[in-house]
């Protein structure tokens, strides 16, 4: 097994007056897809932002074997692409200009877009199938169309590590399947993906699962592992059950039948 992409030690985060994360120790492997799950308010997004150096925190984070603060900003931006939750704004930018923003870490301060930049933008937009509306303003797109443009923006960075927070929001089932394929292809090419997902059925497609509850690490293990399934059921108070169906793991809500 290769060296971890992230080594997290004693990570604590305080947002305003409340402690969101309490001393998390965690290794996130490189070359695999790790999914962070947990109940609402467990600190999933906070953990993702902290390891991306997008949030002040206490504790120690090493990224690709180097201390996080030692990374120069632009080099970090080239190595680690971020796709946030419900990104709003940029209503008046054309889709292709939004995707081109992913090339910022590669471009000199005032330099024009290079041929490599344009190739990366074309490839990313074709990959998420949003090339057709490259000349439309982001504000004129539907939620799902917009999400595919934003995903292309993150892919255009061509970073080895992709961090995505609720990237499936607004995507219909065929495009959720496309998203899975994009993630799988990225990992097959040696890349690392860390994602926060609400939808447990999709999360169970990942290689590994990090389960958070109340700002603490509840469990970490392979998605196919029975111990992981048990931990998942536990943090959701036994309100879900994990089943095997058609060669995939699915999480279904536990409905009390006698209530009906």
């Amino acid at each position, binding site marked *: 097994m290769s060296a971890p992409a992230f080594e997290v030690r004693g990570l604590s985060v305080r947002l305003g007056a409340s402690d969101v994360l309490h001393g998390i120790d965690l290794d996130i492997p490189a070359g695999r897809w790790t999914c962070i799950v947990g109940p609402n308010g467990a600190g999933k997004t906070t953990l993702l932002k902290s390891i991306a150096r997008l949030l002040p925190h206490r504790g120690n984070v090493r990224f690709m074997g180097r201390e996080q603060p030692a990374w120069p900003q632009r080099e970090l*931006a080239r190595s680690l692409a971020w796709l946030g939750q419900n*990104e709003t704004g*940029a209503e008046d*930018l054309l889709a292709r200009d939004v995707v081109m923003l992913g090339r910022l870490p590669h471009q000199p*301060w005032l330099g024009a877009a290079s041929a490599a930049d344009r190739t990366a933008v074309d490839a990313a937009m074709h990959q998420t199938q949003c090339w057709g509306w490259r000349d*439309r*303003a982001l504000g004129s797109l539907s939620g799902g169309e917009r999400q595919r443009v*934003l995903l292309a923006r993150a892919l255009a960075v061509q970073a080895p590590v992709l961090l995505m927070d609720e990237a499936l929001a607004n995507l219909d089932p065929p495009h959720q399947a496309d998203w899975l394929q994009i993630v799988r292809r990225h990992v097959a090419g040696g890349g690392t993906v860390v994602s926060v997902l609400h939808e447990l059925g999709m999360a169970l497609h990942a290689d590994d699962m990090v389960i958070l509850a109340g700002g603490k690490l509840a469990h970490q293990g392979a998605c196919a592992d029975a111990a992981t399934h048990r931990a998942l059921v536990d943090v959701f108070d036994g309100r879900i059950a994990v089943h095997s169906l058609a060669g995939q793991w699915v999480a279904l809500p536990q409905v009390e039948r006698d209530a009906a």
Partner: protein
Amino acid sequence: MSAVAMRQPAPLGLLLLAITAGLCLAGVAVGSLGWEPLWGGAGDASAAILWEIRLPRTLGAWLAGALLGLAGAVAQGLFRNPLADPYLLGSATGAAFGVAVLLVLIGVSPVAASGWGARIGLTGAGFLGAVLAVLVTLGLARGVQQTLRLLLAGVVVGMVFGAFSALVMFWAPEIMRAMQAFLLGTTGFLGWGSVALLAAVFALALLVAIACSRPLDALSLGETTAASLGIALAPVRTVLVGVMALATGAAVAQVGLIAFIGLVAPHLVRAAVKPTHAWLLPLSALAGGVLLLASDVLARWLLAPQELPVGVLTAVLGGGYLLWLMHRRPL
């Protein structure tokens, strides 16, 4: 929709430049009696009126409008709010306060003031007031890091400085008339000194703002995403707030409180094209210049030999445009 999106920014820029040239001619041709082009008639008096009064006023009005349009585009990008206004940081009311204090101290009215010293004194006081207000706003907001704090501090400072100006006018009612001209906005006091100052500030502000155009594009996706793209947010914000304060302070000090130009100019540009900030910033400046110069020509022409305060005209036109926008796109 696609037809709108396909429109290119460069032709819009050329169109705005052509309109600017036409308006400059009109601005020089319209005098206190309405349309009276003086370049046909020979004579020192005609030449002096053209050269000493109409030309600097025309150029100055365009430059002040361009500064407000640029500051508006920067404000809307920086605060990620299409309704942001360059007066948000309290600079306008600060400038008004500075002018009110100076009027009381030296006891001159802009109407009576004819010497260079008085003009530079007034613009200097306006500029100092604007800078002071922005500094107080930044102090209250503890820097430029938190956008919401900054906006709230700007509102508070605007109210407090507005109250101070009202208090000064209450104590010294003799400055009321002169203050009114300033509060309504006027291009009547623009001379070559003002034009030189506005041009220098405009060149500097435009260059610095365009150098920050990519970070502004990235900021439109949110601060977290911009940071993830390697943008150093703190220095970029500091520079852009500086540009905004300098551009607004310079314009307000020269022409008073001209309403709506900074808010409307970027809107007009975005209604026609969907540009990145590298285009939006210069186009908004061009649109702002065109708007203020057109308003100024109209203000001089409509009721000649009476002159409308140009700020009233921009408020009516800008307010009308925003109402139309609301009507077309329900909020």
